[in-house]
């Protein structure tokens, strides 16, 4: 049989399970929200896991639409986490997933493309995820203060987020960790999954 390039029933199931793991990775990474300084690393930590899973999705389901389905469960998680932030997060993630699909196109066996697509894909953690704190720093910090976070901590946060080049650092570090994630993903693929005959 010709390898089918359209998503079929079984691909939706595989992507559904990996999508769940995607969300679990994100929830686990939110441990980073434990303190003001580490919050900034949340995106980077999550993108490491996402990078690993991204490689597995691309290799297991090398078809157009796999990344979009892979994003569904995190999208629902974003959506339920608040009205305005939720909708922007969910729409942003889907748009970037679509962009990743376009980068991958039909060449889903090239590791370079997969890495590039993964880096674009995880931009939702660094760009969209930190947009509120960098663009609306005062609003964000006032809200934090109003919710009862310690004044000194909030003023440290305010200082940190008003250094705008830091946003670039966040974006770059997230991209780097995504790169690391895809690298580890590739190792796991080669060393285990391919050898075990699963992919």
């Amino acid at each position, binding site marked *: *049989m010709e*390898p089918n390039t359209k998503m079929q*029933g*079984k691909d939706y199931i595989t992507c559904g399970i990996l999508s769940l793991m995607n969300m679990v990775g994100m929830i686990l990474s939110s441990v980073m929200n434990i303190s003001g300084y580490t919050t900034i690393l949340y995106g980077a930590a999550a993108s490491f896991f996402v990078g690993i899973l991204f490689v597995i999705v691309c290799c297991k389901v090398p078809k157009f639409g796999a990344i979009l389905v892979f994003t569904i469960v995190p999208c629902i998680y974003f959506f339920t986490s608040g009205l305005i932030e939720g909708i922007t997060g969910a729409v942003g993630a889907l748009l970037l997933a679509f962009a990743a699909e376009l980068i991958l196109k039909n060449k889903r066996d090239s590791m370079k493309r997969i890495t590039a697509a993964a880096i674009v894909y995880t931009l939702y953690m660094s760009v969209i995820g930190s947009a509120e704190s960098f663009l609306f720093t005062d609003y964000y910090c006032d809200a934090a203060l109003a919710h009862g976070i310690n004044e000194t901590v909030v003023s440290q946060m305010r200082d940190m987020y008003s250094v705008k080049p830091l946003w670039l650092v966040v974006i770059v570090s997230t991209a780097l960790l995504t790169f690391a994630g895809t690298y580890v993903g590739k190792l796991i693929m080669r*060393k*285990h999954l391919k*050898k*075990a*005959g*699963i992919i």
Partner: protein
Amino acid sequence: MIKFIDYSFSYGTEDTESGVQNIDLSIRRGECVLFCGASGCGKSTILKSINGLIPHLVPGQSKGSVSIDNRSVKDIPMYEIAKLTASVFQNPKSQFFNTDVESEIVYSLENRGVSVQEMDKRLDDAAKRFRIEHLLGKSMFELSGGEKQQTAFAGAFVSGAPVIVLDEPTANLDISAIDNIRTILLEMKKAGKTIVIAEHRLAWLHGIADTVHYMECGKITESFSGEVFFSMDEDTRKTLGLRELSRRDGVTAEPSAKTCSGEPVLEADNLALGYKKSIIQSDVKFSLYKGEILGIVGINGAGKTTLLRTLSGLIRPLEGKISLNGKPAGEQERRKRFGMVMQDVNYQLFSDSCENECCLGNPGTDNEMAKKLLGEVGLADVSERHPQSLSGGQKQRLALAVSKASSKEILLLDEPTSGLDYASMVSVHKVLRGLADEGKGIIVVTHDMEFAEMVCNRFICLCRAD
């Protein structure tokens, strides 16, 4: 009903499973056909070719044709085949989608867009026929493996498909669950379904299978009528490498002549087992001697696995004490000195080759020693393969080799023969005997009486507390 004409199939990859060659076969409407033979003989390939997974889901090269009702399987889309054949697979855990029993049973009808009234009617009918009314309304996750399989059978029946394909449906079940499945299968036969089964455990099919095909290396080498097959003598059965053909209700054999003497290595005194506050078993008392293989038998839910988890130090006993060589041993010490082969051995293999698996976490073992160990358990020729690509029996022997490498003194095995064919069962038996002769104490939990009689010196029967 089903016709194979000069059909061959190969998976295209080297040695995962060999496929089948030149199959000519026809199956009548209402017939019950059993395929048997060693693992990898091609029986599940035949089944997959009937229910359409080959060629629609599994890629590979095929020649010849398979047809159901004169329609070629290759040319019908998968969702149309679903109206002709319904399948029950081996693993009860990974073949349901819904979290509640009722939806699970009618799932194939929902996908087809059948009206709700019709679904309710068929559901009621199936529940009555198969006597599973007590399961309706439960969550799938509350069910035991056997009950999950019953649900899967009901789903297959409800779909209205004339052909039922069963791929080792009892691999993980205990005797009482198999009895229930047998009742269901008799009902299905009465309803005129054509049934195709691949199985290692054969005894329960006595009186159900009309025709038996014995397969070897992708070919049907012998065909029997059901009556002739089940009256086969023991020696022929063993040379064909088949599991036993008549069922037994308890252990009949004499305890092995080899008596175990001396000081016990393990003593369990007054144990109460369970999680948190719910006690599953209390007052468990036994001892294990050096070089002994102790069998723990009993029905599902009697706390066999809990007993192993307690002994191995994964959970604390609620009461009582466990001593090793006469000294009380805490959880941590037990974890160090006990080796365990879990029921699902997949979770305990971590490395990328069998050889590295033996060395992992055992700094004293080098590659040479690992090779020697693998040779002892009969895995020398697969030492470079990925552990997860091995067959079930091979994985278990690898896990035993690993326990030996980390010089564990007592080995615990949880249901080692679920889903194994006769040859794998015999080789696991040989490895266990060898380890026992070296002076290890071994405890085997099993509901497989054939295996238990083969290996164990002594038995303990756990009954349900109520």
